């Protein structure tokens, strides 16, 4: 059974429909890339999975219907979100950001600091004073502190310097190899996505138009739907 099962997912922003039938499935320990051009519904799909916006269709985590749950319960059930734009708690320090989100499990302040040593160095610093890359690491660390079974990274490397991007991708690879966490990735770098993802799902106008193992994604398909 899939950890996350999404079928015919539809969602609206007020009166305008944004998702017209998204299908995707994720198993434990699997990394899936959610791809598509800008405005095709990737972030909306993530918001619907996290119950931040209402949706219809099938949406289950480990067989349990997520539609019945509020956002915080979805997070507690094991969906860790690293939102687009990082969105750390600016007034809290690095450690406080991590403690506020902490749930029992393998991920602790120590293990997060081991994954991102920079966070350990900046432990007492307010999140607002961190660089963009450090804030991104903090956002990932904060999601990990919830000890998720599914980690969603929405544009985790957007607007970051190449060196910092490498650090983030290295951390994602470590998460894939060292932990059993399933990862849903949204990113613009096809090269990095291809190297780390097992599967890919492509959205076009709020609908799944292609899905399958990453190594079966042809150049023609990616150029047609993703533009790269």
């Amino acid at each position, binding site marked *: 059974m899939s950890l996350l099962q999404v079928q015919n997912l539809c969602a609206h922003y007020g009166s305008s429909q944004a998702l017209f039938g998204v299908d995707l499935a994720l198993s434990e320990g699997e990394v899936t890339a959610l791809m598509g051009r800008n405005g095709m519904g990737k972030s909306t799909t993530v918001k619907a999975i*996290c119950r*931040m916006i209402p949706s219809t269709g099938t949406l289950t985590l480990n067989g349990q219907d997520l539609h019945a749950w*509020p*956002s*915080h319960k979805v*997070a*507690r059930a094991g969906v*860790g*979100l690293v*939102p687009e734009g990082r*969105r750390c*708690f*600016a*007034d*809290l320090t690095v450690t*406080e*950001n991590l*403690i*506020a*989100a*902490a*749930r029992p499990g393998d991920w602790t302040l120590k293990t997060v600091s081991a994954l991102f040593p920079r966070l350990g160095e900046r432990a007492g610093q307010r999140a607002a004073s961190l660089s963009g890359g450090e804030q991104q690491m903090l956002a990932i660390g*904060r*999601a990990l*502190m*919830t000890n998720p079974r599914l980690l969603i990274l929405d544009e985790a490397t957007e607007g970051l310097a190449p060196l910092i991007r490498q650090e983030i991708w290295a951390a994602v690879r470590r998460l894939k190899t060292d932990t059993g966490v399933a990862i849903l990735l949204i990113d613009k770098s096809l090269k990095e996505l291809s190297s780390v993802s097992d599967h890919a799902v492509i959205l076009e106008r709020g609908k799944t138009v292609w899905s399958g193992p990453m190594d079966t994604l042809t150049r023609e398909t990616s150029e047609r739907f993703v533009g790269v």
Partner: protein
Amino acid sequence: MRVNEHAITAAVILGLIALPVWALIMDEPFTITLVTRAVILALAAVGLNIVLGIGGLVSFGHAVFFGIGGYAMGILAYHAQTYTTLELGMLSTGGTKFMPVIWLVAMVVSAFVAGCIGLLSLRTSGVYFIMITLAFGQMFYYFAISWAQYGGEDGLSIYIRNDFPGLNTLVPIQFFAICLALLCLVLFLMARLQSSVFGLALNATRQSAIRAETVGLNPMRLRLLAFVLSGAVTGLAGALFADLNRFVSPTMFSWQLSGELIVLIIIGGVGRLMGPVIGACVFVTLEHVLGGLTEFWHIYLGVILLCIVLFARGGIVGLLTGKEGAHV
């Protein structure tokens, strides 16, 4: 020059001890009463600071809990002093003059009412939350006015201050010591709360409820708990305030008092540990000094408030430490 926040805390506590001791030596009992008033208002504002400063909820009805504390003291002491029975449905009691019991009742009833008000009002946010809490405040105010059994509009006088074991509460310095000890205890607990997981989660909720939800925090539950704790602390302050004046009246429920508590926090520093204490000291000083010069002293208070809001967003504590207050 930036001052360490711990240094400010120590200086204020020492000042609050030194001033009444000086007044005792100089035989100025009124000064002790003034400082006691500041300490009690500070305690009430520390309670409000839990929801306002950490939780970012502008409660414009905190006088409800202050009034409940006051009436809890007034009703229990009234029955004890007049040897009449207080009938509470199945339960009847002769009241009490024992302060710790009065405080406990004040806190429990305030917490219960805060729970009920919170369940309804916390479903809203922003200006609607302000209006709902104000509406509850007015409901209690008008109820107290029409509560003829306990003095109605005229309020209820208590002939003698309630008892505390081992102390003569009628001696101003001894009653002050009780109030200051309670304030210090609550400040200690508040400091612990601010750095606790609950405090951090509540702070996170203030910064963004949606973001907090995505990391598994339940904003409604956190805010409700904060509201209940806040109500209990303000209720305790209300009981002490009524004991200080040996009088309780519907004005303890008034929206002006709710507003004053917010003003105290803004003057001192929103979300700062000592913000409410410094705010209360400044407020009582202005009330006494300027109030002696002109009955329109609130105008000057308004100017000070305006300057703080415009030029020192972190209040006096923020000004001294060079840090902004919590964004509400």
